[in-house]
């Protein structure tokens, strides 16, 4: 008796907060499935944009969507998130696992609990229990980067590839696509790949020292955001304005850099499209439709010339949906 009163009191306080934040979309047709998107890291423009796409698609299909994620790219942080989402028993989950192996157990448990699991952006080594795996065609992205950079440097000169760490499937694929494509450009010489451990300062040091040993450096390909920023700093330190830089991803900061001339080209993934496809595939699975095991989304090359085109706009990553 007494205990219940106490609990009710506590609840009264907390539910006030809870009600105001859970706006739900009215179901249009079919069953109002409950879906959850687990981001690779919360608050990152890439995943925010993915959530925007997922939310738009969810509203369209009349299903409910929750978005969550760890506040760091860290499998040890993401595991409790995955476990709690499983405990919340949604009908389907779109997840970007932070590690391809470490999270097998909790994601398998999620699937075993009867929840439909779709991988978005990243995936596990074992995809046997997933509805679908949707990701960027990173190889194509690397090819696109090579073509764009070759154009920017008029098809001749030495180029540098700044990668994160060896052994990461997505960035390795980008580098492979890049170097393979550059073989079709005989006047372009690709230097050995440099690794930065995702540290912008390392990218800066690498850039300045390569510039010293290769004064004819014409272009740099940075496989992710951190590297691109480090490279830009390095070029600035060397007062070099001739080297063209092309980088992966197109967050608000990168667009700013593009407009400011710090980078000359961006290869944008399509997180919005990944989010849309993720919801589509999951709902299809729930409605017993036919799903596609692997979906590779397209990329766009963004330069100063086309950044304002409406066709390119949808590829820009957003800090918030509206």
């Amino acid at each position: 008796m007494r205990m219940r009163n106490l609990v009710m009191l506590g609840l009264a306080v907390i539910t006030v907060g809870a009600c105001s934040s859970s706006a739900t979309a009215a179901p249009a047709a079919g069953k109002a499935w409950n879906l959850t998107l687990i981001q690779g890291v919360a608050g990152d423009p890439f995943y925010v944009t993915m959530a925007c796409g997922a939310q738009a698609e969810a509203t369209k299909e009349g299903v409910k969507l929750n978005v969550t994620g760890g506040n760091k790219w860290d499998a040890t942080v993401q595991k409790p998130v995955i476990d709690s989402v499983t405990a919340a028993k949604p009908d389907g989950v779109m997840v970007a696992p932070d590690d391809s192996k470490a999270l097998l157990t909790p994601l398998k448990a999620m699937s075993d609990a009867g929840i439909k699991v779709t991988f978005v952006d990243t995936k596990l080594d074992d995809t046997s229990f997933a509805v679908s795996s949707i990701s960027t065609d990173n190889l194509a992205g690397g090819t696109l980067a090579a073509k764009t950079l070759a154009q920017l440097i008029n098809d001749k000169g030495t180029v540098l590839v700044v990668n994160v760490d060896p052994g990461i499937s997505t960035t390795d694929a980008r580098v492979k696509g890049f170097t393979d494509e550059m073989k079709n450009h005989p006047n372009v010489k690709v230097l050995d790949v440099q690794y930065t451990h995702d540290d912008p300062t390392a990218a800066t040091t690498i850039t300045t020292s390569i510039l010293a040993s290769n004064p004819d450096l014409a272009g740099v390909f940075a496989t992710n955001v951190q590297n691109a920023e480090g490279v830009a700093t390095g070029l600035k330190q060397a007062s070099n304005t001739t080297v063209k830089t092309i980088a992966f991803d197109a967050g608000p900061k990168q667009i700013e850099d593009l407009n400011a001339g710090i980078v000359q080209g961006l290869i944008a993934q399509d997180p919005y499209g990944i989010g849309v496809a993720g919801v589509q595939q999951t709902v299809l699975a729930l409605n017993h439709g036919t799903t596609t095991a692997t979906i590779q989304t397209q990329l766009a090359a963004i330069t100063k010339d086309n950044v304002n085109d409406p066709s390119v706009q949808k590829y820009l990553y957003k800090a918030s949906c509206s």
Partner: protein
Amino acid sequence: MTALTPGRGQAMRLAIAGRFAPLAARWKAFSATRFGSIVARTLGTNGAWIFLLLVALMFVFNFLAPGKFWTEFNVRTMAENVSVLLVIAVGETFVMATGGIDLSVGYVLLFSGVTSAQAMNWGGHDPTNSGWDIVLLGLAVALGSGLGWGVLNGLVVAKAKVPALIATLGTLGMSWGLAEILSNGQDLRYLPSIIGDMGTGRVFDKIPFVVIVAILVAVVGGVTLNLTRFGRYTLAIGSNQEAARRAGINVDRHLIKVYAMSGMLAGFAGFMSLAIFTTTTISGHANDNLQAIAAVVIGGTSLVGGVATVVGTTIGVCIPMVLFSGFTILGYQSFWRDVAVGAVLILAVYADQLRRRRRERR
């Protein structure tokens, strides 16, 4: 206006006090018994109210998410997800009981996981089908690695007299850097399948092994702190280092032992992490040190040392996880979890301060 008149307010207070009076009397009688006095003392520090907070949180989340929060699955995974943290928090409790701090635990954990995994991969063999000998080798290397860092921390703090905050910040960087160098920044993904089985295994198909192991560590830690000379010296040093020295306690040697123990437990936690994640999670455990310190402080261990309970630490580990899980199940933005945990942390330290002030007024 809803303001109560003073008369009514007082009447209500009296009524409430009246309803609780029999309970209070029963508690008083209970705490006079031998067992009761132990319970009362355990809860006496910060324990009572943080335990109530934990129970209240569980009730609230169970009410808000019926059939979701308070399920076997969720309780089990919550316990599993705090097990690694609990092990390092037990070591941290001893360190903080001496008035020190160990910032290095999360990265010593990482380092030990890397050396352990490398030892098991020695010579380039795929250890997937290795037997217990290789597993025990891995465990020994993990414990040894942790112990090494712990002894280094202890020597730097006790002998070189470098403040613990700086000493362990230094070894944090060193262990992290060396873990990255040794692993080349890449996770080792091949481990004996026995280890993975330990990570997923459960007793009676219900209680995960890792949870049982963590509870064992906590029980041994609690008994050591409360009932042994080692624990008594730990608290005495934290309470008044000079007094301990004058009483003939070899303070330096004891401090080295305490830091060594914290390091070794971090090494053990590194091995547990290998079992749970079946890889070295080189980018993970980044905030484990701060989480462990938060748990210890929430649990009522004083920041200046001298007062500590492992029971409190255990509850202190659980509260953030309950908040984390509860908020996630309710579908809140992930950052609200951090806000809530931060607020609880401040409340805990504030409660400790109040207690001290009350004491000093005597």
